[in-house]
């Protein structure tokens, strides 16, 4: 639903409800006398008060509570929450737990990326209103995408117990290590999904991309061995290499009064960019040779600063997640006990991982009984808010000669480049209570 204004001297594009994004958000662009006046991404999904209501809860509840922030990336929240609590309690989980978490997380990347690439983003490049309309002319691609998504869901069910808000992860590990057959039984489907993902990458490589270059600072995790998914240190294209505990010294959030979301800022650098393009720029050398070769064949440059080309990286990451899942499936052995003992203590802990949309950071403080005293959650879409607005502004400035319909289409697409999860971005609003 949108309302372009009539006069040329002053043009207002108002998209009341953005289509094909997770959650509810709107966009307002104002042009006055041929110059861009303002861009506002408006989030009006009801604010979530997770950081507030976690206070007073038991530290072990954090993974299950925070998973409810998002229905499409719950594993990201569970992983960060568990990690943060484990760090606070001075616990290191064994490699078997870490690998099983990584497998579960690969399932999430596969289903999230498949849904976005095919049903939410590809329609933009091919001129369709929706994935449904696109299905009529491209049934093979849509069937492929939905089939790959199903494989991601199957991994999440086998390892996590359920595809929406998996129930098997807990602080210290898991409730149960799945039987070997349950995990090995995924192999054929994941091998199929790998081939189909590479085919999707080849398909996406045929799209036409607007010529755009953005100079964000990239921020992502970096792992000593592998492409970052479930853990790592925080690195930036400005040269930072940080432990998760140092996040708040370099990154902050501003609450913008017209929105229910918090906007990420990097101290001394302004807007920054998290997500597939950041991971690609900072971790290419960690991809498998097959996926790296396919990515290069698809036309991906060593650093991509064109937000529209994020769809290529997502498709490549989908293939990587399939290949990595195969490695983990082949290596999997059930383990017992399924979790390590975790004893609460008066401490603060930090957890960080790469959600499909980008860096996700949690911090919790608990008392000696394990009661949460403070919680902070910084999701990727909140961190990208300013970049999204500056991307839209840059797009408008370059395309002012377009008629409103075409200009609006480009603006909406600029938002969808980020696969924004507006549900996650509205997880928190500052709450103060005055008792009189």
């Amino acid at each position, binding site marked *: 639903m949108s309302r372009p204004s009539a006069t040329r001297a002053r043009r207002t594009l108002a998209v009341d409800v953005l289509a094909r994004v*997770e*959650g*509810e958000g709107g966009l307002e662009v104002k042009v006055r006398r041929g110059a861009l006046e303002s861009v506002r991404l408006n989030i009006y999904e009801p604010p979530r008060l997770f950081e507030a209501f976690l206070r007073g809860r038991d530290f072990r509840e954090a993974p299950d509570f925070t998973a409810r922030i998002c*229905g*499409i990336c719950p594993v990201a929240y569970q992983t960060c929450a568990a990690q943060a609590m484990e760090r606070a309690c001075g616990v290191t989980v064994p490699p078997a737990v870490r690998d099983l978490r990584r497998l579960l997380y690969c399932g999430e990347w596969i289903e999230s990326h498949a849904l976005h690439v095919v*049903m939410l983003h590809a329609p933009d490049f091919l001129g369709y209103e*929706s*994935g*449904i309309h696109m*299905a*009529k002319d491209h*049934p093979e691609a*849509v*069937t492929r995408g*939905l089939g790959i*998504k*199903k494989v991601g*869901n199957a991994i999440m069910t086998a390892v996590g117990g359920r595809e*929406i808000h998996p129930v098997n992860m807990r602080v210290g590990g898991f409730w149960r290590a799945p039987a070997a057959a349950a995990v090995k039984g995924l192999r054929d489907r994941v091998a199929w999904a790998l081939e189909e993902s590479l085919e999707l990458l080849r398909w996406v490589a045929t799209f036409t991309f607007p010529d755009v270059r953005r100079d964000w600072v990239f921020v992502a995790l970096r792992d000593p061995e592998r492409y970052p998914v479930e853990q790592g240190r925080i690195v930036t294209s400005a040269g930072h290499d940080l432990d998760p505990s140092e996040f708040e010294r370099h990154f902050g959030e501003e609450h913008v009064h017209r929105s229910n979301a918090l906007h990420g800022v990097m101290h001394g650098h302004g807007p920054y960019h998290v997500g597939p393009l950041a991971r690609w720029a900072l971790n290419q050398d960690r991809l498998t040779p097959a996926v790296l070769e396919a990515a290069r064949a698809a036309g991906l440059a060593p650093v991509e600063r064109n937000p529209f080309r994020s769809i290529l990286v997502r498709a490549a990451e989908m293939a990587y997640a399939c290949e990595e899942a195969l490695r983990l499936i082949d290596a999997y052995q059930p383990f017992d006990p399924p979790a390590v003992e975790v004893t609460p203590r008066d401490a603060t802990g930090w957890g960080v991982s790469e959600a499909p949309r980008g860096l996700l950071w949690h911090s919790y403080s608990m008392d000696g009984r394990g009661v949460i005293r403070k919680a902070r959650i910084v999701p990727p879409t909140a961190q990208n808010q300013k970049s999204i607005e500056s991307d839209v502004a840059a797009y408008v400035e370059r395309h002012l000669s377009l008629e409103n319909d075409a200009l609006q289409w480009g603006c909406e697409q600029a938002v969808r480049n980020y696969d924004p999860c507006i*549900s996650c971005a509205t997880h928190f609003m500052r709450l103060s209570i005055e008792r009189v």
Partner: protein
Amino acid sequence: MVRVIGVGNPDREDDAAGIEAVRRLAAHGHPGVEARVCRPDPDDLLTAMMGAARVIVVDAMAAGTDPGTVVRIDATAAPVPAELFRGSTHGLGVAEAVELARHLGVMPRSLVIYGIEGRNYRFGKPLSRDVSFAVEQVVDRIEHEAAEAA
């Protein structure tokens, strides 16, 4: 054999209409009816429809009619009006899932949708009386259709 798929949210009052219809059908145990529940997700609904020649989907609807109104739509004949079965902003609704099935060539030979107009969608509340009565009507009609098809 008719496969009946109930779609909805069991925790949101009248949005449980489809699920309640399936529950009652399963309890009756009519030999010509296979009843199952699924989420209003394109994957889930497409998967649930596959492999059956005759499918009936039951879901709550928000068409602006009186609560308890029942609408029967032959989805093989024409596109399902999307405004009747509004999905959430996080997933596709029944209408979109049916169109997806049509475009992907996986429509069953016969696909009927029963929509039941809801009154309220509050968390944790049971079905409203109008809707519960309407569910009973739909269950009767489905069992008749199944008997005629046999």
